[in-house]
């Protein structure tokens, strides 16, 4: 009969032997790219859309016989929480086989992880977070961003809403850096545009019950309730507004411009205005081709507002790797110098803070979809906004 020690010895040697024997043989070198976004929770709609789009880009590249390398997308779920985000960022960045990352939709997570990527030297391209400080608040050469920031979204919001004739605003924003940034930029541009913020309500991102805040807002009788938060906040506010009897125009920037918002708040979303740094797919040269390929690939979720950006970011990274090889430092330097790069979302030029400059557009929720404002019934005068 075997003694315990003999059994243990046999087992461990078997395992070690198996490890030694099972080293894989490589054909075309596989290069790994990380994708990080909110794949679960209230912001999963844009997160999954981004992941699918990045996966599509990788799929297309792998189907291309001319590609020097074969690519693998390693996905991580940051759950839109800063602490989880830092954990997965550390995991991805400390894995030396991952060469670059397509990272973050949630700004709160994006700003928390910049130090991690810099520490490990992982070059990343942000695809959805709009907080300006992510690229402008530091000098890390690893951080790039293809989508725009809330500076132009906030500016457009202030100008557009005041042009519609609204003068009295109330802002509800979450207490993460995202919400605080929204408040900062919106209020900065609102004053010169002629609007006035009657009151601001900072709330926790997970807060469920807004009857207290909405009751106070009812007293103030504003024209517009501007929300500085993501989809869960937008959904809750919009649903509870009616019950408390608050009548005002509801608006927010691209954080609420998601399928999740429309699904969550149901019929009440009609007429919500949003501002987004991307154009509708039909306006892009390759927009239709992208949509066809996306549908053919059979993904369950829509690309949502930022899918095209994730797609472009993934392609940007893969082109850089094709050019200089799978080396983090070289890819970083290559990405730093991106100028005139033709992507799905237009031409990408990084400024001295590796930020792509974009302009914002207005969208309105109409009949269960987000519609580009100039093409909407509201712009044509067929439908009216609240309090018009």
């Amino acid at each position, binding site marked *: 009969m075997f003694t315990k020690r003999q059994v243990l010895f046999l087992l461990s040697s078997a395992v070690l032997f198996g490890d030694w024997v099972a080293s894989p043989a490589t054909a075309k070198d596989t290069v790994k790219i990380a994708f990080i976004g909110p794949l679960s929770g209230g912001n999963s709609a844009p997160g999954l859309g981004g992941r699918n789009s990045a996966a599509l880009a990788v799929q297309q590249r792998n189907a291309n016989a001319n590609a020097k390398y074969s690519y693998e997308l390693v996905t991580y779920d940051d759950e839109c929480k800063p602490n989880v985000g830092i954990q997965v960022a550390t995991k991805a960045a400390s894995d030396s086989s991952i060469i670059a990352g397509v990272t973050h939709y949630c700004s709160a997570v994006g700003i928390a992880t910049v130090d991690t990527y810099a520490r490990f030297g992982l070059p990343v391209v942000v695809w959805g977070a709009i907080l300006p400080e992510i690229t402008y608040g530091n000098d890390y050469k690893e951080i790039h961003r293809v989508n725009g920031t809330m500076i132009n979204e906030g500016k457009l919001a202030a100008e557009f809403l005041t042009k519609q004739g609204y003068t009295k605003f109330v802002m509800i924003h979450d207490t993460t850096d995202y919400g605080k940034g929204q408040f900062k930029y919106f209020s900065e541009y609102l004053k010169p545009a002629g609007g006035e913020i009657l009151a601001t309500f900072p709330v926790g991102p997970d*807060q469920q019950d807004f009857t*207290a805040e909405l009751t106070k807002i009812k*007293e103030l009788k504003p024209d517009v309730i501007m929300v500085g938060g993501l989809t869960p906040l937008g959904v809750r506010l919009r649903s509870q507004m009616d019950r408390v009897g608050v009548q005002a125009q509801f608006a927010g920037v691209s954080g609420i411009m998601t399928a999740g918002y429309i699904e969550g708040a149901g019929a009440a979303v009609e007429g919500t205005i949003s501002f987004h740094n991307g154009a509708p797919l039909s306006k892009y040269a390759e927009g239709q081709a992208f949509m066809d390929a996306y549908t053919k690939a059979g993904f369950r979720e829509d690309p949502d507002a930022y899918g095209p950006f994730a797609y472009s970011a993934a392609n940007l990274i893969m082109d850089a790797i094709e050019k200089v090889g799978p080396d983090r430092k070289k890819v970083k330097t290559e990405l730093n110098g991106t100028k005139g790069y033709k992507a799905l979302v237009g031409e990408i030029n990084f400024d001295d803070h590796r930020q792509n400059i974009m302009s914002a557009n207005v969208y309105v929720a109409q009949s269960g979809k987000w519609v580009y404002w100039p093409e909407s019934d509201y712009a044509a005068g067929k439908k009216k906004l609240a309090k018009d």
Partner: protein
Amino acid sequence: MDLGILAQQVFNGVMLGVIYAMIAVGFSLFFGVLDVIKFSHGDVVTVGAFSSLGAVGIAGGLVALPPLLALGAGIAAAVAIGGLVGSLIGRFLILPLRQAPAVNLLLATLMAGTVLREAIRLGVPNGGNPKPFPALLPAGSIRIGSFSVGYDSIIILCAGLALVLATHLLISRSRMGLAIRAVAQDGEVARLAGVDFQRVVLGTFALGSALAAFAGCMLGLYYREINFNMGVLLGVIGFASAVVGGLGSLLGPIIGGFLFAGVQTLVVVVLPFSSAYKDVIAFAAVIVLIGLFPTGLIAERQSERV
């Protein structure tokens, strides 16, 4: 502050109080019968909410139902499934562990709650996202000056109060209630008197859990949204209300529930800035009250064999 707005805040507070009371009553019932704190109770609320959502969805998918019938189906589903889950947990987890040290039991029920929560999150398609709850109650509201309260809120409030009253009547007037009280007072002697201990215990569990599931359904109707995490905080608040009010009695948890909601409303009304502090202050009040009244406001009669 405007009287109408004040009245509105008070109304909100009363409604929250009813919901907390319903959950707290469950805790008190379980404790009375078995001397256990069943922490999965909060997650039974979530189970109830999702069950009613599922039932309404499925029933509505098969046949176009008028909202009232759909509501009935939802409530029935919630109560049935909630009660079932509660008694299953009682049968397979709590009865076997009755004699174990309190920590083990607490931990076991907390883990059971986690299992329920994760099962919902993983089992329901896209369970991680908040789900919209259909508006099944009549829309429209009463407006008196600046006081506006929806018909649905009034209905929910009345339903909650009615249920709590019904539970009280059940416990104090019916035969089943007599059996429950007997077991709560002294399990052994009750058995000697011919009461079927297991059936009474499981029945109590079913009753308490059905109440919680109903509360979950009501929460869905009120907030028009449910998510898999909703039971966690509610469980703790329900527990806190029950303990502060006095475990083992029926009036205690009701008082506790309204007290907690009362503190929350007070904070919201009095503090000019964010209402998020309401939880902080309410929990601080709980700690202080427990420090002053270690066995609750309506004290538990405790004797210990030396």
